[in-house]
């Protein structure tokens, strides 16, 4: 059963008056609308959704990272309400799919966005509310470079520890040599270096 988003939004506004939350429309036939939550309110929103008895969103099923170099494309997929100022630059987005196992409601789609794609890539971790986010947030950190503040163990998970860059970003350039390794051959290393822009590393 799909959740009644306008009703949930009204209750969220009543419970958390300072939280910035917007209802984004999904133009696809799936009609899975989402709530855009400001990063600073994310944990409070998750706590409210999990701890309110008649909502009881106890299962965080999925966490997706998305890279949006062009913000206009993001607004086409998740359409903001009329009169919203469009974001100025590209950003990274994290999408959460929540379900209620007892009430059989879901998915409730939450999304939150970083300020940009370079320095301001911090989003609060929801691991303290939903443990299932632990490895998924690590994966998004690894592949997209979102820094989850408050995560208990934020390390690379799929790529090896010495790997630089974040391969799921849209502007990632694969190494010239598929035998690229943590200790590549000298010529390959030199060739590869020019693809890597100076980016803040772990």
């Amino acid at each position, binding site marked *: *059963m799909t959740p009644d988003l306008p009703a949930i939004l009204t209750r969220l506004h009543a419970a958390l008056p300072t939280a910035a939350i917007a209802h984004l429309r*999904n*133009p*696809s*036939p*799936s009609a*899975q609308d989402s709530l855009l939550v400001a990063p600073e309110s994310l944990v409070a929103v998750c706590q409210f959704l999990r*701890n309110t008895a008649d909502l009881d969103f*106890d*299962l*965080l*099923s*999925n966490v*997706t*990272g*998305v890279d949006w170099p062009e913000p206009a*494309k993001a607004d*086409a*997929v*998740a359409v903001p309400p009329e009169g919203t100022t469009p974001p100025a630059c590209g950003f990274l987005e994290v*999408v959460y*799919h929540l379900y209620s*196992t007892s009430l*059989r409601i*879901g*998915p409730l*789609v939450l999304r939150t966005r970083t300020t940009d794609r370079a320095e301001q890539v911090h989003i609060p971790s929801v*691991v*303290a*509310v*939903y*443990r*299932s*986010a*632990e*490895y*998924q947030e690590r994966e998004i950190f690894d*592949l997209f470079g979102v820094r989850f503040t408050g995560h*208990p*163990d934020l390390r690379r*998970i*799929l*790529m*090896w520890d010495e790997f630089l860059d974040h*391969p*799921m970003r849209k502007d*990632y350039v694969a190494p010239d040599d598929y035998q690229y390794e943590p200790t590549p051959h000298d010529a390959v290393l030199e060739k590869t270096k020019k693809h890597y822009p100076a980016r803040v590393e772990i």
Partner: protein
Amino acid sequence: MISNPSMPPAASPASKPELDEDQLLHVSLGPQHPSTHGVFRMNVVLDGETVVSLKPVFGYLHRNHEKIAEGVTYLSSMPFTDRLDYICPLTNNWAYAQAVEKLAGIEVPERAEYIRIITAELTRLINHTAFVGFFLGDMGAWGSALMYAFREREKILDLFEDLTGARMMSNFMRFGGCRNDLPDGWAARASVLVDEFPRFLDELENLITGNEILIARTQNIGALPKETLINGGITGPMLRAAGVAYDIRKAEPYGIYDRFKFRIPLGTTGDCYDRLMIRFLELRESLAILRQALDQLPAGAYIHPKAKIRNFKPPVGEAYARFESPKGELGFHLISNGTANPFRYRIRPPSFINLTLLEDMCLGLDLADVVLILGSVDIVLGEVDR
């Protein structure tokens, strides 16, 4: 371990004695797991025989499937989904097709729904019997139980080969139906298999369930409270073994599961023994679904006549669809920007997320139990690492 004051305590010992760092033993378990679960490594810290810390290490099979999928068309990812959980390619195919159908609003004809359910439940038979074999192997009964399981598995794989052209890499579902119709006589042969399968199941159950060693090894290990499991994102047989009645086939029926009569078996404690037994019970329910589906199988089209194979471009938007795969909740989150390639293609792999609580389950137990608990999670590394 993560301290989370709002959650019930995990299975860790109530009072941890002060550990002498010099007396601890660091063991790197893997990357070749002794019972061939795949290339998976655990960094285990032992105090004597007792596990005091366990950190899984992933990524040995990582090929960034999600990135590859962004560079090819929607249909081109279909054969790649076979390689996720390579024990159960047909359920992966269906889960992906279902997500794309949701994204583009595609109808599926009646006969295709039946073919999908029949292949999916046959896949569940394969997965759960193979699970029993591997699990016994983890316990030291290496070979015999697995050979019994694989003997039956081969019979089902023969059916799959006739249907899809390949034993395992099926590439069978299409957006709006299936790739081809059932071959002549296929349904009758599947029907015979479904009739004969319970005899094998009785035999296997008789051989192992009362076994003293099995009971001594599996009972009272690996159990966690229900709330912790749900909070940790554990789904599928692992969750139901702990007594949570949550099966997506009932909770959010997809396909035509709401037409069939079947039960959701539940365990009580959620220990490794319950996890093994829940698979046996689910096998019998799958057989019940198969019996009904094969009896009702209608004639008609196996793919929607207007389904687009070439030049397929779903409308702008996103969709998340989840599926009760034999290992748990398999989800696909797709974002389309109107082109032929997905803008974002995300898999929610049940094996990967079911490992979240592995450390909590193993703390305070012996090293030998870790192998069993890992076996009871039922992972496939193709899906964990993607």
